[in-house]
């Protein structure tokens, strides 16, 4: 059933991409609507900054529009789009890391308080800590832990545990050997495990 649904999605994407190549903006808007949230989430998980994620997500779709002629359909459209998103996120991360310090938990230092956690969340400017849902709080802290990872580890962790790509797919996307991907994921998970223990007390 799921496989049939995936097949339908693939065919629909291929049709939309075909229409886009003829300059059909409506077809591209359909693809934007379809992948907007997913790409934004991916970029946000890697960057850890809401505004940056919004900007980079725009860039991802514009870059995709420009490069549609080069898309040969060898990979899925979603995979191709994800690769663009990871590359642009990495570029942005390199720019911003030198510009300012991140609101991230150091994976080695003591855990900051909840105030800092909320401060790192762009949508938490209104509600107080008491009003925040527990789930939301955990999510913010987990994101804080991700933000503490080195970019190379963030990418593989997000692609594996958020996007749920296989080791092989991640290796293909990032140009890494499968062994390297496996090793990075292992180390990133260990780091997040340690961070979450400190942030949440227990995982």
């Amino acid at each position, binding site marked *: 059933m799921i496989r049939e649904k995936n097949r339908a999605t693939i065919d629909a994407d291929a049709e939309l991409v075909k229409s886009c190549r003829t300059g059909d903006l409506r077809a591209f808007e359909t693809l934007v609507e379809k992948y907007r949230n*997913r790409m*934004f989430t991916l970029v946000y998980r890697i960057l850890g900054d809401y505004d940056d994620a919004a900007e980079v997500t725009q860039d991802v779709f514009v870059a995709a*529009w420009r490069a549609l002629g080069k898309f040969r359909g060898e990979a899925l459209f979603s995979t191709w789009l994800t690769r663009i998103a990871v590359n642009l996120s990495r570029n942005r991360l390199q720019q911003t890391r030198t510009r300012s310090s991140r609101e991230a938990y150091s994976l080695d230092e003591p855990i900051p308080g909840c105030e800092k956690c909320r401060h790192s969340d762009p949508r938490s400017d209104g509600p107080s800590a008491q009003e925040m849902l527990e789930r939301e709080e955990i999510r913010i802290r987990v994101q804080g832990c991700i933000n503490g990872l080195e970019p190379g580890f963030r990418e593989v962790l997000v692609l594996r545990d958020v996007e749920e790509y296989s080791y092989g797919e991640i290796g293909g996307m990032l140009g890494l050997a499968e062994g390297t991907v496996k090793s990075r994921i292992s180390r990133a998970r260990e780091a997040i495990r340690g961070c979450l223990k400190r942030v949440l007390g227990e995982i």
Partner: protein
Amino acid sequence: MDHAGIRDKLSAYLDGAVTPREKALIEEHLKTCPECETALRDLRRTVERLRTMGEEEPPPWLTQRIMARIREEAAQEKAFRRRFFPPLRWKLPLQAAALVFLSVTVYMVYRGVSPEVKIAVPPVAEIQREGTPQAPPAITPGSETEQKPAVPEKRPTEEKKQDIASAKGRAVPRSSGEAPAAALPSESAREEAASQFAQPPAAAPAPMPETKGGAQRVLGEQGDMALPRDAENRRKEEKSASSPAMRAKAVAPTAMRDMRVVLGVNDTDTAFREIDRIAGLSGGTIVRRSARDEGGVCIVRVERERLGEFLERVGKIGEVRKTTPLPAGENGVVEVLITVETVNRPGR
């Protein structure tokens, strides 16, 4: 695999990315190592936390902003394409016009450099200047179109003279050594010639109207014969008027030189048969022929290097009364215009 090695493999074990042997070893170790067991449980929960984070809600304006940028991109791209790649409705006519221009240019250049015109025409112009003072002086070597007006100028006179000859009957007295009168074509002679000579298209005058130059040329010859007093001059005139057109039709790209021979014979039919034979022997071809009882003309195309041999054979058919000088050079093709005249006309 020791404890540290097992710890490193726990993440991969969680994803089922270990070999069966590694899996067995890890599971065996986990039974006896509470630390690794706890680590595995924490890792599993960590992954679970990451996987259940859910999607972030992007700003509501995201799609709108993306599409605004895409429209801008598309408009720029369209403008670029319009600038550097014109639409098909302009492109096709432009390409067609360019092709026509190119073809015409190539044709003109080809004609311009063709040696045929340069070599062939100057003698014609010379002959014309010598023979006919009233002929148009503005004949430029190599320009066939400029020579053409000479034809209509000549035609009425020629036809008039021919009419006079016809009115007088065929028995117009000949001046000594000149061509006999022969104005009206003889159907029987033509048919005979056509059947005897293996050159059907050239044998009979029937195809002559197809080529204007050819028709004029033969008419000119008839006029010649009808009024022998000025035969040579008229022949030259006629040649200058009609020869370039004929050359253009018949000989296009090769270098062609002209030569004229007036041959006196006893019997026209025999003479033409002989010409046909010796043309074959000398590797030549009969391009055009117009035979009458009283005489006729034929054009034989022969290689320059075999021209001497051909002329020697022609000399054996009858009396060579007139001949223009041999064309210069050793190579190329020469068109020999042979005017056959009967010495003793068959009595009628």
